[in-house]
C-alpha cells in the first residue's frame, strides 16, 4: 500500500475519508450487516458493482416500487458506487481481490462474484438483489440464503435442495411484500409459473383430482358450455378458454399481449394471425444451459420459444374480432373489451376450470404428463428441470393438442406451423457423440501396451482406458456434472442390471435411485474389472510402488467402497468435468442427460420412465417411494432396449483393457 496516499488503515478507511456522509453511512451499514471485512487487497468497487447490479435486477421485474425505503436505498447504492468508482480512477487503486475469501466473508464474496462475472443468471441476480436489499433495510433473512446464492453463482445450482429452492422463492416473496412492488405482466407470469411449481403440494405434484379440480363429466360439460358461448362471441367465455390454455389466472390472462401488435419484449403472448401461443422458456425457466459459439454446431437446432396452437374455432373467432377492432389492441382484454371486475359471472368457477386442464389431459386424454403440462402451461406435476433437458417438437405438441381439443369438444387445433423444436439448446447430435467415442477409442488403441511394456506405458494406457470407461458410464447412466464421479467399486455387482446413484442429494434418503445399466456398459465394467486385475499383476511384477494407486486397483477387484474410476496420478479420482475436458469436442458435461431425454422421447418412452432413469423427481411424486407404480425390472427392460439400439447405431461398444478377450467380471 501507498503510504503517501494515506492507506495506513486499509482500503475501507481510505475510501471512508473521501466519501460523502450518505455514502459513508451506507458503507458502514454494509459492514454492520454483512459482517466485518478485511479490507486489504479486496476490490470494493467490484463489490459495489455487484450490489448495484443485483438491486437493479430485482427492481426490473416490477412496474413500480411503492416503497420509498427501497428507492432511497437504490439511489444510495448508485451514488456510493459512483463515488467509489471516481476514487478508484482518481487514485489508480488496484482492482484485484488478492486472496481467496474465507467462508465467513461469503456474503462479500457473493457480491465480488456478481460484480466480476460477465454473465450471471438473471434469476440469481434477482435473488441476490432481494437478499441484499432486505439485509440493508434491516429485515430478517434466513441465514443460509447467501450460501444458496453462492451455490447458484459457482454453478452448483443443480445440487440445490428443495428446501433451498423454497427459501429462495420465499425470499423474493418477502422482498416483494416488504418493498411493496407492483409487478409487471412479465414478472407476474414468471412468478406465477415459478411459485406454482415450487410450492405445489403433494396432491398437485401427483396430478390428483381433488376439490380444486372438476370431475371429467363436469369439465366436459363446462367446456361445451364455454364453446357454445364463445361461438356467440361471449367475451368472458373466450377469455376463460384462453386462460385455460395460457395456464394463467383470468385477470392475468386478459393482459396477455397480442404479438401481432406488440413486438417489443414479451415472454408469453398470442399470435392471432397464426393461431399460436408463444412462451419464452428462457425467461420462465431460468438457468438453462447455453450454447457456446464454438461448439454450437455440435448441438441440434433448438428454439427457446415454445409454440402451441389455439383451437381452430378460437383462432377464427380471434381473427374476426381483430378485423373488426380498428384500435390495434395490444392485449387480449382490449381485444375482447373485457374487464375481469365488471364481467364476473358468479355461477361459473373459472379457476377450477383453468386448474383442471392438465389433470384432464393426463387422466382422460392419456397424454404424457410432460406434454399435458405443456398444453395447460401448468407445471406443478413435473420438475422444471425437464425443460432444461427436453426438446419439444412441434409435431408432438400439435398431436397432443388435437387429442385434448377433440376430447373436450373444441374441434381441432389451428393449422400446423413449421418451426424448430423448443427446449434444450445442448442436445448433442448423434454424429458428435459418435465422434467423441471414436476419438477416445483411437487414442486408447494407439496407447495399447505390448506384453513387455514399461510401467510408464502401462500407466498411460490405464489413464486412457479409465477415460473411455468413465465416459461410457457418464453417457449411459446420464450422470450429472459431479466431482468425483459418484460411483464406487462396491456399487457394481456382477449380475446386477442396475446401479444405485445419488448425484443430487435433494430428497434425503429417497435421493438414492436405481438406474438401468445397459449390456454394453455392464460388459465394459467387466473389462474394467479384468483390466484392474491385470494391472495389479503386471505392476507388482515390475515393482511399482505407488500404494494409493495399487490400493485403488485392489478396491475395484475386491469391490470395496473406493472410487470406481481413477487415474494413475494424484489426485487419482476423476470428476465428470475432468473427463469432459479430454473429449475431442467440448460438450457440456451433462450432455448425456440432454441426449437421452430426447432419444427416449423419440422412441415414445413415457416420461415417468425417462424421469426415473434421469433421476428427476418431485416431492410427493418420488420415483421409488411406496406410492410409485414404477417397477424396476420394467424400467431396466424399457431403458436397455432403447440404449442398446442407439449405441449399436452409433457404433459404441465395449472395449477390452489389459486383460485378454473372453474374460468376464462374473467369472472373476
Amino acid at each position: 500500500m501507498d503510504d503517501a496516499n494515506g492507506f495506513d488503515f486499509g482500503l475501507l478507511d481510505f475510501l471512508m475519508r473521501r466519501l460523502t456522509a450518505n455514502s459513508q453511512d451506507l458503507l458502514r451499514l454494509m459492514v454492520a450487516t454483512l459482517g466485518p471485512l478485511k479490507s486489504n487487497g479486496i476490490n470494493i468497487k467490484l463489490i459495489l458493482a455487484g450490489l448495484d447490479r443485483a438491486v437493479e435486477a430485482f427492481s426490473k421485474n416490477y412496474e413500480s416500487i411503492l416503497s420509498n425505503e427501497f428507492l432511497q436505498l437504490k439511489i444510495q447504492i448508485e451514488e456510493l458506487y459512483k463515488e467509489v468508482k471516481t476514487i478508484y480512477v482518481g487514485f489508480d487503486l488496484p482492482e484485484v481481490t488478492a486472496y481467496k475469501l474465507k467462508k465467513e466473508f461469503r456474503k462479500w464474496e457473493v457480491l465480488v462474484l456478481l460484480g466480476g462475472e460477465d454473465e450471471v443468471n438473471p434469476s440469481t441476480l434477482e435473488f441476490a438483489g432481494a437478499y441484499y436489499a432486505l439485509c440493508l433495510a434491516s429485515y430478517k433473512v434466513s441465514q443460509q440464503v447467501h450460501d444458496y446464492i453462492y451455490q447458484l453463482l459457482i454453478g452448483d445450482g443443480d445440487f440445490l435442495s428443495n428446501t433451498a429452492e423454497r427459501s429462495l422463492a420465499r425470499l423474493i416473496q418477502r422482498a416483494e411484500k416488504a418493498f411493496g412492488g407492483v409487478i409487471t405482466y412479465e414478472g407476474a407470469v414468471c412468478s406465477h409459473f415459478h411459485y406454482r411449481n415450487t410450492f405445489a403440494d403433494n396432491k398437485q405434484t401427483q396430478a390428483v383430482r381433488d376439490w380444486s379440480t372438476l370431475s371429467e363429466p363436469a369439465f366436459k360439460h363446462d367446456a361445451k358450455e364455454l364453446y357454445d358461448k364463445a361461438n356467440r362471441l361471449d367475451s368472458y367465455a373466450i377469455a376463460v378458454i384462453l386462460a385455460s390454455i395460457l395456464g394463467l389466472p383470468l385477470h392475468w390472462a386478459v393482459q396477455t399481449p397480442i404479438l401481432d401488435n406488440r413486438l417489443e419484449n414479451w415472454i408469453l403472448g398470442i399470435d392471432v394471425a397464426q393461431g399460436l401461443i408463444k412462451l419464452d422458456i428462457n425467461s420462465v425457466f431460468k438457468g438453462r444451459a447455453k450454447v457456446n459459439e464454438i461448439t454450437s454446431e455440435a448441438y441440434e437446432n433448438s428454439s427457446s420459444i415454445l409454440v402451441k396452437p389455439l383451437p381452430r374455432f378460437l383462432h377464427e373467432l380471434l381473427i374476426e374480432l381483430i378485423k373488426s377492432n380498428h384500435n390495434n389492441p395490444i392485449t387480449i382484454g382490449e381485444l375482447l373489451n373485457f374487464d375481469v371486475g365488471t364481467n364476473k359471472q358468479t355461477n361459473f368457477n373459472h379457476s377450477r376450470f383453468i386448474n383442471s386442464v392438465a389433470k384432464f389431459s393426463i387422466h382422460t386424454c392419456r397424454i404424457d404428463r410432460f406434454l399435458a403440462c405443456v398444453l395447460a402451461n401448468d407445471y406443478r406435476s413435473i420438475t422444471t428441470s425437464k425443460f432444461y433437458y427436453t426438446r419439444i417438437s412441434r409435431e408432438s405438441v400439435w398431436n397432443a393438442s388435437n387429442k385434448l381439443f377433440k376430447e373436450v369438444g373444441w374441434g381441432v387445433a389451428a393449422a400446423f406451423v413449421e418451426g424448430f423444436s423448443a427446449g434444450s439448446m445442448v442436445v448433442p447430435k448423434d454424429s458428435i457423440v459418435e465422434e467423441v467415442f471414436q476419438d477416445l477409442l483411437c487414442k486408447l488403441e494407439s496407447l495399447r501396451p505390448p506384453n513387455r511394456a514399461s510401467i510408464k506405458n502401462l500407466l498411460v494406457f490405464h489413464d486412457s482406458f479409465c477415460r473411455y470407461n468413465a465416459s461410457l458410464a457418464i453417457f449411459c447412466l446420464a450422470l450429472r456434472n459431479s466431482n468425483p464421479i459418484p460411483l464406487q467399486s462396491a456399487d457394481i455387482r456382477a449380475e446386477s442390471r442396475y446401479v444405485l446413484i445419488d448425484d443430487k442429494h435433494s430428497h434425503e434418503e429417497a435421493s438414492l435411485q436405481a438406474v438401468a445399466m445397459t449390456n454394453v456398459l455392464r460388459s465394459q465394467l467387466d473389462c474394467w474389472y479384468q483390466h484392474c486385475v491385470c494391472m495389479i499383476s503386471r505392476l507388482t511384477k515390475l515393482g511399482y510402488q505407488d500404494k494409493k494407486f495399487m490400493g485403488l486397483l485392489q478396491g475395484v477387484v475386491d469391490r470395496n467402497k473406493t472410487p470406481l474410476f481413477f487415474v494413475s496420478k494424484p489426485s487419482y479420482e476423476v470428476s465428470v468435468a475432468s473427463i469432459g475436458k479430454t473429449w475431442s469436442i467440448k460438450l457440456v458435461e451433462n450432455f448425456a442427460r440432454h441426449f437421452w431425454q430426447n432419444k427416449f422421447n423419440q422412441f415414445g418412452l413415457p416420461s415417468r420412465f425417462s424421469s426415473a432413469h434421469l433421476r428427476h423427481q418431485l416431492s410427493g411424486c418420488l420415483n421409488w417411494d411406496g406410492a410409485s407404480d414404477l417397477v424396476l425390472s420394467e424400467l431396466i427392460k424399457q431403458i436397455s432396449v432403447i440404449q442398446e439400439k442407439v449405441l449399436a447405431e452409433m457404433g459404441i461398444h465395449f472395449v477390452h483393457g489389459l486383460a485378454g478377450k473372453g474374460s468376464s467380471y462374473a467369472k472373476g
Partner: protein
Amino acid sequence: MRRAKPNYESLKSLRVALIKQGRAESFQGFQQYVLKAEFSHEKHAFLSLFAFDGIRVSDFEFLIKSEPRIIDSDRVAISWKDHDQRTQRVILSPMTLKSLEHSNWSDIANIPINVLFDEYVPFGGRRDIRHQFKSDQLAWFAESCPGPILLHLSGHVPMTALPDSAYARLLSAKVVTDSSGNDGTDDPSEVISIALSGFLESREDDKNPGLIDELLRICHQDTGLGRSAHKKCVRTVSYARSKGR
C-alpha cells in the same frame, strides 16, 4: 386392535433400501432352479407358489385352507383370509398351473414348509434360512412389484382384496351369486359397512359402531349415494366427533 400407523417417511426409501441389499439375484437363482429341477408335480407346484406367485411363508398356513378357483376363462386364482382376517387373492402363474393340472391340492397343502427352506439352502446359506428366504423374497418383490404392492407384501400398508362375490361381479360386470357363499358379503349393507369401516379407519373415526350404524342408515335412505348423502354423512361424523364419540 388398532394397527400402528406406518412411518411414511421411512417408506419413501424402503424400496431402494431393499434393492440395495442386492439379494434379489439369489431369489432369481432359486426361481431358475425351480424351473429346471425335476420334482414331483406336487412339490413343483408347492415351490412354484413361493417362487413365482409371491406367496409369503406366513400366508401358506391360511392359504391351504382354501382352494384354487377358476375366475374367468383362462385364469385361476386362490383367495384366503390372512391372520388379520383380510381377504387376499393371487392369480396363479402358468408355472404353478402346469404342475397343478397333474396334482391334488390336498397333497400340496400337506407338504411341510421346511421342504421350501431345505431347497433354498444353496441360495440363502444355512444361517437362519427361514429369515433369509423371507428377506430375499422381499428383495425380489422390491425389483418386480410397484410400490403399493411392495408395501402390502412387506406388511407396512396391508391391503384387502375384494370379497369373492364382489370380485366376480367386477369381472363379469353383472350381479353374480357366489355359490360357495363363504364370504357372506352379498348383503349390500354389509358391503357398505366394510367400505365405511375401511374409510373411517383411515381417518381414525371408527371408534364408535353406533356412528357406523347411523351412516349406514343415511346411505340406505339415499340409495343414489349422491351429494346429499355425503353431506349428511360428513355432518354426522363431525357431530359425533364434537361430542367426543
